[in-house]
């Protein structure tokens, strides 16, 4: 491999990794969707072992560990029962109209 090709490869690699990191930061939901879809496509049965390995590596971390969203449960029992709904610690704002004063 000559220096010019090595240079092109290095630049392509750096730019690609940067693009992936930027998408993950700016659009985490989209990134996760793409990551999961790609991992599923690669891990499908019938694929060769290397592609399936890449698919497994691509899976989101909690999916690998059997956490939320895998059907194995978010509780501490590691999948011994039905998982509770994914807890989201947010308090959305809700504005109710004030009751009108009666004179």
């Amino acid at each position, binding site marked *: 491999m000559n*220096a010019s090709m*090595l*240079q*092109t490869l*290095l*630049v392509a690699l*750096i*730019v690609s990794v*940067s*693009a992936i*990191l*930027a998408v993950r*930061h*700016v659009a985490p939901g989209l990134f996760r969707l793409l990551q999961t879809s790609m991992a599923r496509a690669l891990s499908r049965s019938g694929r060769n072992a290397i592609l399936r390995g890449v698919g497994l590596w691509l899976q989101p971390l909690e999916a690998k560990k059997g956490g939320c969203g895998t059907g194995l449960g*978010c*509780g501490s029992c590691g999948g011994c029962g039905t998982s*509770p*709904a*994914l*807890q989201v*610690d*947010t*308090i*959305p*704002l*809700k*504005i*109710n109209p*004030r009751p009108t004063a009666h004179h």
Partner: protein
Amino acid sequence: MSEALAGLRLALVGNPNCGKTALFNQLTGGRQKVANYAGVTVERKEGRFTGPSGRLFQLLDLPGAYSLEAASPDEVITRDVCLGHFPGETAPDVIVCVADATNLRLHLRFVLEVRRLGRPMVLALNMMDAARKRGITINVQKLEAALGIPVIETIAVQRGGAAELIRRLDGDKPSVVEVPSAGDLHAEVRAMIADAVSMPTRTAEIDDAIDRIVLHPLLGLALLALIMFLIFQAVFSWAAPLMEGIDAGVGLVGEWVGGALTSMPLLRSLVVDGIFAGVGGVLVFLPQILILFLFILALEESGYLPRAAFLLDRLMLKAGLTGRSFIPLLSSFACAIPGIMATRSIQDPRDRLTTILIAPLMTCSARLPVYALLIAAFIPNQTVAGIFNLQGVVLFTLYVAGIVSALAVAWVIKLVRRDKSEHALLMELPSYRIPHPRDIAIGLWERATIFLKRVGGIILSLTIILWFLSSFPGAPEGATEPAINYSFAGTLGHWLHAVFAPIGFNWQICIALVPGIAAREVAVSSLATVYALSGNEQGLQAIVASQWSLPTALSLLAWYVFAPMCLSTLATVRRETNSWRQVWIMAGYLFALAYIASLLTYQIARVMSA
């Protein structure tokens, strides 16, 4: 499964600002934010620790609450967790109720309310060191007998200050006390205090003496203005040598790396013009950010900030806010995201929405690199009135511009909204505390880490992408202009220039605005990269000073006072309001304000300088 293996779930509850999070950090080794005012913790935090016997404890740190009859969204979390109603979470095995030993008259009421839940419970009498200093003596045995629960003294801010609490939790699980669910809690507290507590004065004399000046309607406001003014003076005066050092260091490393890559011109351009010029251009602002946070952290620890909220309550009331909005707005000086989340401590949903909508107008630390770059380039580093640094005065003015705009927008919202009811401010004023150097050092370390992670993460990624978009496609044969003019970014910059020309932005600024939406500081690194690729050998500050007009620089400053250039903030507003409508309203009014302010600034400055 044995209890030891399963672990014990503990929840820290108590009135705001009694030291729950400091105790949480002490027990778990965590580094959650602590400060000397109410409302720092607005979400549930979780940690783990192991007792001396090897038993595992899962610890929840909950937002402070004055009552289980929740009045604000953060108190709802505490109530729901204690009652076992929080989604996906069972009630804690043991409730660790934390009370400020210097203010038991207030804190014991909540302890008695929690005791009525009929769950195993321990009382941690925190801040015992401060209580002793004030001559307060507490007969722990008597208090324990009256409450019927274990009472343990703690000093959460001192190493080993929770050892006795850990020992007690590691022993037998406290038994449940049966108490009647009705009765006057205040009367019960008064009786307990009369029996078990001896207190020379209800408040500390030193606090009263300081408050006579700090809370004075005129002196207090003058002092607040002076403190803020001095902070911005220091940001410019103290940071200069450190910034020069970082700049020189980055330059040397860049030259060395560039020299080693002479055989690979494309890679050399990426490293030198992209990474070192771009990222290095942002990195130099680390000292200024740390100096700003040194003061903010010291003020947070001292207990001064709630006093400032009290002082500004009347002004904020006129603008349609309450003093309760002060802490969320102050948090927004670090970053709008924690500021928006801190609005959970505001009880009235309308006040909360108004505070959310104006929070991005507070000058977050990500704007500092942009302000500092333009001020250093255009404002002479000279002294005015004998003592003031002119650059510091301009920076102070920009921060004030953000505050005044926020108040003006809140006032307009007040005019527009149908419900014009006002809410009195009820806020606890904590005792003054000398900031602990270790806590300040940890706080600064955290801020430095956050900044460096941003520099090494999103700023680096976007700078590299911008380098790519500014380098490809290359210039056609026979091209006479710099190659960047023919690139993707150059083409986009020229298109956008048509929209932004009336406000004085050149095409290079237009390019920098686009990645700046992801993180404001990227605008600086993008400008550095764009100018480096245009063949400029000077530093960014020198380029800006020589190639931009003063009206353009002022216009960009005005743009950054208002523009909602942060996607993460918009995402947080969506989450906290559960509404895309509010996001569009916020983004729309901020862009409109930014454009109008820049247009006026540019046109007026152009006429005046003609």
